[in-house]
């Protein structure tokens, strides 16, 4: 009898889940482009298709897209060749130069997708100076950064890494020897988080929108999270890789990071809108330039 009652409840309440169709009938599959350009690196672009929810399509590899890169002064764009090993469309000889504008196009001639195109200008790498670096506690470090707030309000991705050294001896006879360990640091506390600084869920480091900084001096606190120090190891230098990025790079990675956070924590955040600078498609074409700086820890 007890089982019968329970089964009745299960039947009643399990019927409370149904598949439904939303009004996605007007949605069409689109091409998706993921490409980041930087001086000194080759051109690597991923091309894929979006998937309409409720349809029978799948995420298939696209190996026969026509992908090309060009500049406004080029007569013919340069085709990118599909690399089976990496799944990217590549050109190892095409030169990317800071300050120049590039366009990437992609199409699938035999399909119904619209051709896609995106443009980006390679930003000039900007200087950010580390003014001070302190170790405040085990695994916690404070950094003071200085931005050059010129008329160009830039976007950055800052990737802090800790250079690990082995040490031996004591007192004034300590010997330091650099090892290859590079530990990641996560941002714990910042002077201004009001959308000026955004920590990334899917990449190392954090994004900075210079236009939203209240001051050109930024005090940040980092925590060592990328591994543990051995007894004879110490962090001597903080290494900052500073990427000056295009707005598309900044907006896209910020949107992706927010979406990933929303998906993990649906109850305490709003769904985040997607970003794209790809005409007739999704994804992004972004660019960055890199500078490195390091400072010894006091």
């Amino acid at each position, binding site marked *: 009898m007890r089982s019968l009652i329970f089964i009745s409840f299960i039947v009643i309440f399990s019927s409370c889940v149904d598949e439904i169709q939303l009004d996605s009938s007007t949605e069409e599959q689109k091409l998706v482009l993921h490409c980041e350009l930087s001086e000194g690196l080759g051109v690597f672009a991923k091309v894929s298709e979006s998937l309409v929810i409720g349809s029978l399509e799948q995420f298939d590899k696209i190996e026969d897209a026509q992908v090309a890169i060009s500049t406004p002064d080029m007569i013919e764009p340069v085709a990118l060749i599909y690399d089976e090993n990496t799944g990217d469309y590549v050109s190892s000889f095409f030169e990317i130069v800071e300050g120049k504008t590039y366009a990437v196009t992609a199409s699938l001639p035999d399909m119904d997708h619209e051709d896609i195109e995106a443009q980006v200008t390679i930003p000039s790498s900007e200087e950010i100076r580390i003014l001070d670096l302190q170790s405040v506690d085990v695994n916690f470090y404070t950094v003071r950064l200085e931005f050059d707030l010129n008329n160009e309000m830039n976007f950055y991705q800052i990737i802090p890494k800790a250079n690990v050294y082995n040490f031996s001896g004591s007192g004034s006879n300590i010997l330091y020897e650099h090892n290859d360990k590079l530990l990641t640091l996560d941002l714990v506390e910042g002077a201004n988080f009001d959308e000026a600084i*955004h920590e990334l869920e899917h990449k190392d480091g954090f994004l900075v929108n210079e236009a939203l900084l209240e001051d050109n001096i930024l005090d940040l606190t980092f925590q060592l999270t990328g591994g543990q120090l051995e007894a004879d190891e110490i962090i001597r230098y903080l290494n900052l890789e500073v990427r000056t990025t295009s707005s598309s790079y900044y907006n896209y990675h910020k949107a992706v990071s927010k979406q990933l956070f929303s998906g993990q924590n649906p109850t305490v955040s709003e769904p985040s809108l997607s970003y794209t600078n790809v005409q007739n498609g999704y994804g992004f074409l972004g660019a960055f330039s890199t500078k490195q700086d390091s400072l010894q820890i006091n």
Partner: protein
Amino acid sequence: MKICMIIALMLFGFAHNAMGQTIPDEIRTDYTAVKKELGQVLWDLSKNTGVNIAFSKEKIQADSLVSLSVKNEKLGTILNQLFVNSDLKYEIVGNQLVIKKDEFINVEEIITLTGKVEDASSGEPLIYANVYLLDPSIGTETNEDGNYSLTISSGVQRLYVSYLGYKKTILELKLKKDSTLNIALEPESLLNEILILDEDLVEIEKSLSSSSELPVDQIRSIATLGGESDVIRLAQMMPGVSTGADGFGGINVRGGSADQNLILFDGVPVYNTGHALGIFSIFNSNTIKSAQLMKGAIPARYGGRLSSVLDIRTKDGNYKKTGGEFSLGALAFKGTLEGPIIKDKSSFLISYRRTILDPWIKSLTEYINEFVNKKGFAEYYFYDLNAKLNFKLNAKNKLAVSFYRGRDLFDNNVTTFTSFEGQETQELNQDNWSWGNQLAVAKWNSRISDKLFANLTAYQTKFDFASFDHQRFEEQDTFFQAGLYKSKISDLGVKLEFDYLPNPSNYFKFGVSAIQHQFNPGLINKNEGSDDIDNSLVLRQEDLDERLNEADISNLELTAFVEDEVNFGKYLTFNLGCHISNVQTSTKSYTSYQPRISFMANGDDFWLKGGISRMNQYLHLLSNSGLGLPTDLWIPSTDKIAPEESWIYTLGAGVDFQKGLFGKIEGFYKTFNNVVSYSEGALLPINSNNEWDQNIPIGKGNAFGMELSLDKKLGKMLWFASYTVSFSNRKFDAINSGQQFPFRYDRRHQIKLTLIRKLTENAEFSLNWIYGTGNPLTVPYQLIEFTDEDGVRRLLPIYNEKNNETLPDYHRFDIGFNFYNDYSFGRQKFTIGLFNAYNRKNPFYLELRRNVDRPERFEYAQYSLLPILPSLSYSLSF
């Protein structure tokens, strides 16, 4: 010198039971006379009305010339108009009227009659009972404590006292001086909960605010969920009120959010009104005396919320005899006991309600989990406790002390055992939610003079919510994710309010209050990478509690108000007032001046009313809108979060179609400023160490719409039908790229029908049908893949716009039957009902998932909350 008149005064006059008798001077007629002899006029009136009018020609100067023109006017009013500048009056003797000299012509002209209106069988004060003269424009109503004050001419006066559910009482009084008169009304001897047969008791609209007097007397007749009568479900049936699925997430009034409703329980604010996340309310219907919902043109005495006021008053307890009610339903057990401590001097009321399904829920979930190779179970229960003591200290002073405590507890602890490549793994899922309210109130009510009443209230109201979720996966390594999320708010308040009635044309209310708000929001997340957690230990809620370090914010809210309801003759009334409030944060002071203006113009069969209200709110509720799961986080206004503000404009008209049928149409327009939301993407932990408030997006909104309703209040079948069309939008710079989007609970169209029909003397049935277009929500239509820095391929939904999709429509049909049996010791009632009778799968929330049979295919799964649910309940009252 005041003469204190007790009910024995009724011996000087005579009390009428208005049912079935026509009083001679209330017969209506048309009449016109131009410079006609008084005697002839009296003769004509007698002929027109069939009422014998006796007079002496010499004594009344019957040959004096008079002029008169009236249409459908009462005979008594016509005679008063004829004699206004003379020393004549009329007196009822049997079935005729006798004209004579007014013996009171030389006594004090204006006197004040004051007193209380109570239930004759219990001594319970009757709120908003009507007290008026033959000319109904000269009248008043009792206040929230059952007190009234009426300043009128001396002499012979007929006083009418009426209240729904009670026999109308008519008193003939000879008044020479200020007097005190306490009136006890006899309840209708009803065999069941509702039956209105007297058209006189059915009133055309009388409130200036855009309000609905919730028919609490019908609350136990209406078909309900699980046999539980519920005042919030009753409010949901009013036009302009919408909710999430099945009451989930509170009520939204005219496009406002759930936190914008000031819900008062005996004058004290309540922050969360829902058990089972809103499916049931915390208000035990056995204790409720009255409930009024104000949606616009809100009087100045109310403040602190933007959209509406739900003013719920509880019973005092029977002053005359001990009684109670016990009921057992499919979901809960309820018991109420009330009675005198000292007869007619003091009373008590205590009521307790608790769910009874705990053992079933535990066993059922344990059974289901065993079936699918899991171990563990879920538990859930809620309870309410209401207690009240009342003391009539003397004829002018009364003290009431009341207490409420309610709690919900949900626990779900399940472990899944699996085997992967020969290795045993286990996954632990824990969800522990608890929330509840606690109120303590002390109220002193005093009649300071014949025209001045005062209330002094001191109270504490608390709400807390805690949610702990923990997933732990043990394989070769241990992975876990745990979050603790807490919201606590506590108010300590004192308020002093006055009612002053200097004359029948003015009713002043004014007062001051101070509320100390204390907020403790907290939010913390940990995982296996967290430095301060030992991964080998299974986390408990206490472990996160120690680390939570909630923010501790307090502020002091000061308010003052003044309002006056002014009658300009019989047909026009205004309510003019201002509510002023101030709150201090650490560096800022927010002061708000909130004018309130409303008017009503009414004839005998119609009314027109409107109003403008400015409202302010120093508290904000952060509520997620993605999946539709409410997470109530109360936060205060701070240096960075300014108070919310709104303007509400309303205009409406109504008609009495006679025979108890009323129609109404009302339009509204609202604007909101400084509304808050969770931000898109990352939300920093909320604790005392970070500036969390700078990450709260601030925006604005608007709402507008129209409500149509028809209401039949008379006869064996009562019904109420309404249609609402409304729009509600929000706009935040930091959300949806700064573009305006529909509000989460913007239901475009709503249709509601409630019907109660008496079948026999001992049986009735009721039905509800409710329809609403679906709520907006944000859904992606497409997905893309991308590869992150570690080479992991991840799926990303494409969100183009906020609240871009509408859930399927919500509709539901409920039916219920009530059967009564009366015995010498009391009354029994059996109720059978069917909630969601045609088993509509109303949408609760959507989940994006892979198809079970074809995992490469993605689909939306709609979860529904409440399927068809039969109920059976039994109650015994004595």
